[in-house]
């Protein structure tokens, strides 16, 4: 029961404190999930791919997944309810007092701070994701000569070009999965990796 409550409470906090869509959740999700040991840094990046290739927002997807992995269906219900509830309650209040909300100076001020803050925090989340992707065994000189480092770097550069050519995220994921598979088996064949 306490486990379910912890899930609910953690995701309630994540839902309450992340303003803006998309990956605005990422910094807080990273912090909480790593701290509680629910997922590894690598798992989080993997799950972003799963979330991009399934319907629905990242927040709901990761709440459901972590809930289910740690406490089964009850866990997924608790975590998802937790992440949805703050939005739900706040929007009901806003919808009721809409004109007051629009003119509110407090909201204007808070948003003046949060819009840029979200960019800064996502940039930080991106940096730690990059470290996870390129240096899974920790930052060291030896990593620069590893096979997967170079595969990742080339894949990343290639996908970056394609992403800016507006290819759909799912195509990006399928292509990078293909590269990963091909390079994995090629590396094995050439005995570059075990």
């Amino acid at each position, binding site marked *: 029961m306490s486990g379910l409550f912890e899930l609910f409470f953690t995701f309630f906090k994540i839902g309450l404190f992340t303003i803006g869509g998309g990956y605005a959740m990422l910094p807080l999700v990273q912090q909480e999930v790593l701290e509680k040991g629910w997922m590894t840094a690598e798992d989080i990046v993997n799950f972003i791919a799963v979330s991009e290739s399934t319907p629905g927002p990242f927040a709901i997807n990761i709440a459901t997944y972590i809930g289910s992995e740690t406490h089964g269906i009850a866990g997924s219900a608790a975590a998802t309810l937790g992440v949805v509830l703050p*939005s739900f309650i706040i929007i009901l209040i806003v919808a009721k007092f809409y004109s007051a*909300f629009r003119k509110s100076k407090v909201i204007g001020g808070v948003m003046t701070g949060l819009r840029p803050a979200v960019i800064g925090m996502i940039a930080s989340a991106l940096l730690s994701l990059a470290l*996870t992707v390129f240096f899974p065994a920790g930052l060291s000189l030896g990593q620069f000569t590893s096979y997967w480092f170079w595969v990742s770097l080339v*894949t990343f550069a290639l996908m970056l070009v394609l992403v800016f050519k507006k290819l759909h995220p799912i195509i990006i994921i399928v292509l990078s999965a293909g590269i990963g598979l091909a390079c994995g088996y090629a590396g094995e064949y050439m005995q570059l990796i075990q």
Partner: protein
Amino acid sequence: MDSEKQQADSPNTEPHKTADKLLALKLFAIFFKIGAFTFGGGYAMIPIIERETAEKRDWINKDELIDIIAVSESTPGPIAINSATFIGYRTAGLPGSICATLGVVLPSFIIILLISTFLSQFANYKGVIYAFNGIRAGVLALIVKALWSMAQKFPKDIPSIVIALLAFIFAAFTEINILFIIIGCALLGSAVYFFAQRRARKG
């Protein structure tokens, strides 16, 4: 308008009530569809929400939708949830907001629940490990793009840039809890906003 319609349909209020109940169910169905067919969530949903609620149906008009999106961006939580709750409430009150929110959440919930039952089973296959080694690099590119798009809409005045840099430095290089960074930036932004307004009033 409403009373005219009621008089034309039926003199008592009963049909109106059942119509309301149906409306909540319709909201559930439409938002279930929106939730099931928008991959990646967030901004990908907006054109579909627009088509389903403002173009095909007259639940809200386009100006209202722009307001709803602006509110969704400046309140906590994912835009999909926020706009579902808001449109649901506007259209059919509390039952409407519950139905629309439940509708938009349920597809993700069901699909991820199914995935989680077999995702870990495949996690140790060599092929899956190789594929995910590639996928992680691709995901990184996707997030660079997401950040880039956000930066395009970013206000490029000095206070905003300073706040963004501070948030980045504290999040990346210190152990300070993200919640405190969020609260700190909100306070800093409020101070900036307050002084800007005061200067505007004086000038």
